[in-house]
């Protein structure tokens, strides 16, 4: 009788242990905390690139040169394409948005919308031509023309043998004068990882 009770309690304890070990557990973490799991591109890498780019781009000489050449008029920047030539899926918007935010917060650089969002804005403006009151209707042909375009590229090199792997990422952001096609700033962030499985 006592043995039966013992067996029963052992079975219950084992089943509870199995169920609890199989249950998914999710905890919120600090986005700045570094957690590397697979060795692939992750949020820490995106954050490092964003930090480097934002600290470089506003302290570089292109800004002071522009302000002195244009009588203190702030430069207008548009974000162009970022080419991902690496071996992984990397969403460049995660760090490019940080650069854009830095432009707006610093109030030293003006930003104009590009891509599909600009298409949507123009479509709304077109819609206003026939639906909005004349006093609130926005006109075509009065957008701010950009002075510079921000473009970028992501490259990677992978060296692997057996269970060891070295992954090298290089992220470059470039700012080019739209009038002269002169490259006025290049930002760079290199990240190397050693992965041992």
């Amino acid at each position, binding site marked *: 009788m006592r043995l039966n009770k013992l067996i029963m309690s052992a079975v219950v304890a084992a089943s509870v242990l199995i169920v609890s070990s199989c249950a998914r557990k999710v905890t919120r973490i600090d986005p700045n905390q570094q957690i590397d799991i*697979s060795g692939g591109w992750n949020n820490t890498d995106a954050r490092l690139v964003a930090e480097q780019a934002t600290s470089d781009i506003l302290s570089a000489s292109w800004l002071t040169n522009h302000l002195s050449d244009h009588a203190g008029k702030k430069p207008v920047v548009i974000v162009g394409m970022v080419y991902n030539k690496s071996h992984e*899926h990397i969403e460049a918007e995660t760090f490019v948005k940080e650069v854009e935010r830095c432009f707006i917060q610093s109030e030293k650089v003006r930003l104009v919308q590009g891509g599909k969002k600009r*298409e*949507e804005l*123009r*479509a*709304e*403006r*077109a*819609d206003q*031509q*026939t639906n909005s009151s004349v006093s609130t209707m926005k*006109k*075509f*042909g*009065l957008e701010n023309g950009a002075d510079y375009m921000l473009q970028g590229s992501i490259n990677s090199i992978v060296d692997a043998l057996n269970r060891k792997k070295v992954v090298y990422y290089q992220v470059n952001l470039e700012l080019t004068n739209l009038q002269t096609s002169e490259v006025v700033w290049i930002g760079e962030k290199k990240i190397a990882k050693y992965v041992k499985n």
Partner: protein
Amino acid sequence: MKFLKIMKKICYIAALLILPAIGYSQSSAFVSDQNPRYQESQDHYMKLKDSLVTLHGTTVQNTYKAYDWREDRAARRQQRREWRHQERLYEIMYGGYDYYGYYPYSSGYYYRPYSGHRPYWGYGNRWRSGFHLGAGYSW
């Protein structure tokens, strides 16, 4: 009297000509610094606006499938189960032979009766066609 009638006609024609011109000039009042070719852009977006404006307030789902080792393994297992299930179905339907006429789990010699029309001897398994020797007829 005739003079008044002529004047009325002239006024009427003038009104017909001038009023639309005034209306047009008001609608297309040129603002200083406005791009002189703005009308081209406006015409272009007037055609596109309906398809773009309907997306306002919606979320465009431009997602991608992230690699997850556990999910990938589960998907592989699921696919294997489905393949085995299909093989079992073929076994039931074709009496132990798969869709292409090979016995699914045999790795040795087998005899394929083929509805009595084509006596067939051969060697092979589920992964390769192997060697076949046969004689008979078919329709």
